């Protein structure tokens, strides 16, 4: 079982890529498994856009199991009988780490006064957490999706902080298509009158906008085949009990419509709309090669860590071609890298779901 909710307040201001800084941010985190005496068995798991630190413990708002409980735990591929697993909420998020919903020094929520952050800023805060926990070198840094971007950023900017990097369903840069989908989500939030220029914490939140943002994003996490298999063109049962009838209106006739509405509404109960703006912006700014003079290989120059890159054949958000691009750069840098494209039907979300081959690869890489 995890300990009580934990957090660490950085004692120094966190410098940001924008040129600004964040005064003494709080990093909320969870740990699982014992840290050994020489502090050599720590694994950092970095979470995705709407993830959180509750990787293998019950979510305090939804009451659902941890988002990667199938992967992390005693006897699981990331074995907490053997490893000390740390997972922290990224800055800019809303589950305890400092973000736009946090109270600024003047006693009011930051809202849009919160500085725009980057993936590297998130990782800088994570490094501050590791310093605070007295962990010099991780056994492994692991991340899927935006978590993979953080692990990549750690590898490029603080290469000595981990002996291994496991990068799953991720990319070294956001593509125009990735940015485009995020912009749809941001516009949906900002078009909600309740958003009010980001200043809504005293009143009602822009849940309608945030739900639409989540619905659009959720489509990108699934595959067309997966959607067809799960929903096809099947119709919802009508409230009056009739089955398989069209409403000739704009209710959720199709099961896929009902599913997306459910996903969107559920999301608003656990996530802050401004956090969604800030984190999607950070992901859109992510371009690891650009941070290192334009050549991705240069980002990994001189690294001594081992890398493992995993993609999924049905992931069209961060497709295999992006993983190959990373692997080629790592090869050119002479880094020991493994890469495998796994076959799974679930699209980008495959990394969170039941894919036994992923379990074997993760377990094997951590041996």
């Amino acid at each position: 079982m995890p300990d009580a909710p934990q957090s660490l307040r950085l004692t120094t201001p966190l410098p940001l890529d924008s040129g600004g800084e964040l005064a003494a941010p709080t990093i909320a985190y969870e740990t699982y498994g014992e840290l050994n005496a020489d502090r050599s068995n720590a694994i950092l798991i970095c979470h995705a856009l709407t993830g959180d630190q509750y990787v293998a413990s019950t979510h305090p708002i939804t009451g659902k199991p941890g988002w990667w409980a199938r992967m992390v735990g005693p006897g699981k591929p990331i074995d907490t009988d053997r490893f000390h697993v740390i997972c922290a909420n990224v800055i800019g998020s809303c589950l305890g780490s400092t973000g736009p919903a946090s109270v600024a020094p003047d006693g009011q929520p930051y809202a849009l006064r919160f500085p725009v952050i980057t993936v590297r800023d998130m990782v800088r805060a994570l490094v501050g957490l590791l310093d605070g926990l007295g962990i010099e070198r991780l056994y492994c840094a692991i991340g899927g999706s935006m978590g993979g971007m953080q692990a990549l950023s750690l590898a490029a900017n603080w290469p000595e902080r981990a002996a291994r990097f496991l990068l799953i369903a991720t990319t070294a840069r956001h593509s125009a298509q990735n940015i485009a989908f995020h912009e749809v989500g941001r516009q949906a939030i900002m078009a909600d009158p309740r958003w009010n220029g980001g200043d809504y914490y005293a009143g009602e939140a822009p849940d309608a906008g945030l739900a639409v943002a989540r619905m659009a994003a959720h489509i990108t996490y699934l595959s067309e085949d997966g959607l067809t298999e799960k929903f096809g063109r099947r119709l919802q049962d009508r409230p009056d009990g009739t089955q398989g009838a069209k409403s000739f209106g704009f209710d959720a006739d199709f099961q896929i419509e009902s599913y997306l509405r459910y996903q969107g509404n559920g999301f608003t109960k656990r996530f802050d709309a401004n956090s969604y703006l800030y984190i999607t912006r950070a992901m859109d700014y992510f371009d690891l090669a650009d941070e290192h003079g334009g050549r991705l290989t240069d980002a990994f120059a001189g690294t001594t860590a081992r890398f493992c890159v995993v993609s999924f054949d049905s992931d069209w958000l961060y497709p295999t071609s992006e993983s190959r691009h990373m692997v080629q750069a790592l090869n050119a840098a002479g880094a020991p890298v493994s890469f495998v494209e796994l076959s799974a039907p679930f699209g980008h979300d495959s990394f969170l779901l039941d894919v036994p081959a992923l379990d074997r690869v993760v377990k094997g890489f951590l041996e």
Partner: protein
Amino acid sequence: MTGIEKLRPDLAVIARHVAPGSRVLDVGCGDGALMAALRSQDCDVRGIEIDGALVEQCVARGLSVVQGDADRDLAFYPDGGFDVAILSQTLQTAARPDRMLAELLRVGRRAFVSFPNFAYWRTRLALLTQGRMPVTRALPVSWYETTNIHHMTIKDFEVLAGDLGVKLRRRWYFTGDRRRGNGSANWRAENALYEIERN
């Protein structure tokens, strides 16, 4: 010398002739058996393998293997990045074996290359008597489903090496699981292994 005796004969010879501590690239590394043997000799070994299930097995053994197509992906490895490049029983599957040999000796200073000899007498006999593409112990798959798209003989390989200006340093021949002498190899050897280097 962990596990060398369990390796396929051509792989066992390679394992014995790679100097400990070498940087090695195994192209078409399969389940990583040779890589594991070389790792136990303190070599820094990397692999390329096209079959995802085999890559998965390699990663589970802690080996650094990239899923990829050697025809396409060798190009992304730096010049002279390795002391030794290995291509075992794979040259005959290449889209352009000549280019693959050149690539091997671009990324590695030296290379070990093994391949089935299509001029082995049983193969010749099968073709002569049956008039059909041979299905033999070394070439067990029918012509329409084999991945071997460029069958070659020992003589073909040596001529190509000459054309490419590649130096043949050492050679080993096999029939079944046994080494055999160099006499009449193009008739009598089922498989061939060469150590080659840039001239």
